[in-house]
């Protein structure tokens, strides 16, 4: 294969632990009660358009976009709206949710439920974007940025390349890997639809070298189409980050504070490409996704196709229960994921995995003093100085944090991973980003 591509700066290689990579995607039964949070995307939360007592079908619109950067939410189940109330979600807070008591599994008639693969694209770019917008598709890699916004470059900017992110650099997670193996054809068609919508001639699908079967399978499928190239990438965390992937794939650097479109790139996740295929070709809005349930002590690490709104307790049950000495349940991967505070938290559009960690594994070491070893600076993929930024945030020196580009931090956690003094660098960086973000917003308002 020659020298594999990767990004230039920093990066780490944590233990991969892809325990569930051989577990085929299982369809999870419909839950008894679905809890659908209204804030499932980056940006403004959606506005509910159903009322208590309404009968809904699978795929029916439940909530409309509440702003430009916002999405529609469709019902993942059929049944009666029980109530619209605050319920705990992945944020750790009680937020407005639509709670539906499930009755049967009746799908909306407009959804094409046949198993045939439709490869012919009939819609125009405008219609495709409209369809994606109406289907409530967000970036399924975890950031949940509304997909249609990315497909509409600002005036004066044009996209040159589409990059499909099949990197899955987070340890443990395998949902994208399984998707590529089992839904490869659909992902390729989804990629072509996205190319059509963006009017680009070249698309790369970046896959890390630890998934040779996926690389082989996708290369085989992509042969039939011009312009789609599979790129095998060297295993390096955080290659799945947008900016890192662009650097690795097309060797371009996104300027500080700018979006990928600045260098003519649009990045989409493989899961998003699949959702785009389903929305455009099958008229099926986004209401289910593949979630990995994994962990060293989990009896049956698996990949489930779960409806949005399924409580994670049901997923854990399906993976043969919670291990005895569970210390932490993490929504997402071990590097960027967030510990969940309740088993009643539902699966949302951005849930890529549920990682169950044992007590010994999950507990943090006691913070020591910084020994200025500069390991954090060495591994930072954005070329920042995490030790300095975290100190600035800790001491509330937000001017310094801002001038040292704290807002460029992608919160990958590489710095904290390698810190020999076990300093919670990322915690302080996030705190600093939060405060600096508030200050910047206030400044722009004045």
């Amino acid at each position, binding site marked *: 294969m020659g020298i594999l591509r990767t990004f230039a700066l920093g990066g780490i290689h944590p233990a991969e632990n892809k325990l569930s990579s051989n577990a085929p995607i299982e369809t999870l039964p419909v839950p008894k009660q679905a809890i659908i949070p209204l804030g499932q995307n980056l940006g403004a939360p959606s506005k509910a358009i159903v009322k208590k007592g309404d009968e809904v079908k699978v795929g029916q619109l439940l909530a409309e976009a509440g702003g430009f950067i916002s999405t529609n939410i469709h019902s993942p189940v059929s049944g009666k709206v029980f109530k619209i109330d605050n319920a705990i979600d992945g944020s750790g807070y*009680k937020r407005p949710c639509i709670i539906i008591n499930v009755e049967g599994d009746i799908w909306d008639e407009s959804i094409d439920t046949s198993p045939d693969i439709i490869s012919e694209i009939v819609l125009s770019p405008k219609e495709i974007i409209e369809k994606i917008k109406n289907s409530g598709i967000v970036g399924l890699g975890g950031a949940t940025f509304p997909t249609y916004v990315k497909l509409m470059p600002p005036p004066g900017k044009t996209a040159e390349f589409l990059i499909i992110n099949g990197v899955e650099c987070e340890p443990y997670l395998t949902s994208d890997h399984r998707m590529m193996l089992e839904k490869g054809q659909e992902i390729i068609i989804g990629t072509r639809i996205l190319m059509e919508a963006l009017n680009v001639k070249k698309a790369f699908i970046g896959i890390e070298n630890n998934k040779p079967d996926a690389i082989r399978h996708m290369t085989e499928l992509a042969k039939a189409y011009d312009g789609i190239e599979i790129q095998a990438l060297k295993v390096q965390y955080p290659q799945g980050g947008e900016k890192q992937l662009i650097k690795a794939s097309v060797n371009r650097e996104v300027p500080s504070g700018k979006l990928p479109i600045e260098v003519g790139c649009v990045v989409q996740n493989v899961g998003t490409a699949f959702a785009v295929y389903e929305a455009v070709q099958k008229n099926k809005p986004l209401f289910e996704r593949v979630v990995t349930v994994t962990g060293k002590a989990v009896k049956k690490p698996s990949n489930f196709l779960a409806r949005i709104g399924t409580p994670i307790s049901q997923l854990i049950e399906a993976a043969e229960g919670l291990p005895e000495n569970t210390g932490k349940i993490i929504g997402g991967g071990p590097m960027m994921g967030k510990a969940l*505070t309740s088993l009643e938290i539902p699966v949302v559009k951005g849930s890529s995995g549920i990682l169950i960690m044992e007590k010994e594994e999950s507990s943090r070491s006691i913070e020591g003093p910084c020994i200025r070893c500069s390991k954090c600076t060495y591994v930072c993929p954005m070329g920042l100085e995490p030790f300095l930024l975290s100190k600035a945030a800790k001491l509330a020196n937000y001017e310094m944090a801002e001038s040292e580009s704290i807002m460029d931090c992608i919160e990958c956690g590489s710095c904290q991973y390698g810190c020999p003094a076990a300093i919670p660098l990322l915690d302080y960086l996030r705190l600093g980003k939060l405060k600096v973000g508030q200050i910047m917003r206030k400044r722009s308002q004045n």
Partner: protein
Amino acid sequence: MDNIIIIAISALGGLGLIMAIILYFIANKFKVFEDPKIDEVEEALPSANCGGCGFPGCRAYAEATVKSAKEHGHLEGLNCPVGGNDVSQAVGKILGLEVEATAPMIAVIRCNGSHANSPGKVVYEGATSCAFAHALYAGEGGCMHSCLGLADCVDSCDFDAIHMNPETGLPEVNDKCTACGACVIACPRDIIELRKRGPKDKRIFVSCINQEKGAPAKKNCATACIGCSLCFKECKFDAITITSFLAYIDFEKCTLCRKCVDVCPTSAIHEINFKPRKPRPEKPVESPIKAEIQSNNTEKVVAENTVDNKDNKE
């Protein structure tokens, strides 16, 4: 030899004289008039430079008061919370103005979600910063309005007036509090409020800011305000208002009659520094939590009263 010395002295002396004359005229020409009252006012201030008045330090506050006195003839809106009434009277005297007496204030913690009242459901392991934990999750007890117990308020205090109680996991304000308001700003959950100190430091307040409905609020904390409005009905002075399932006592209207404390079913209303009540044989049934709080308060009364007496004697 003598000659050289005389020449040197006269040259340097002459130069010095010429320079002194030039400097004298320059100093007169560029003289900046500064009101001597600014220095006087600054002298009268506590020199804590805490920023509680809203100005960057005592000097800036002194300048603002002198300016306000000159231009508007009053000192409204200018208040040194640390100095309190004494300092504002002294400042008024210097500037020749009548200053209305201001009631001394103190910070109160409006959360009683101690380890016992709101047992932890999850364990927090992140950075010891309330601001960060607030962005991350609701809190160990599950109440999303509760004190996070990571002591941002303690770090913000310049007066050593607020400390964490390791037993309850809640901060406690002591007598050193000057009501500068730094902790109010530091608290990401807006739990801390500045209230009137009250006569003999007696005060009554609702020690909860949870705006959830009764049932979910009570689920996470035994002493949450459930918005039952019993206190609202009991109060004859219109001091209590209820907004979104939360009672609030207006300290301007409150007469410290303590009737609301008696009726509160969750003991969310706290009375501080009152004398212990006479036992009432006709109402023996009280919740164990309430009894505990009252006993705590009783101890405090004894302790703080002795301190007060000492102060008065001095």
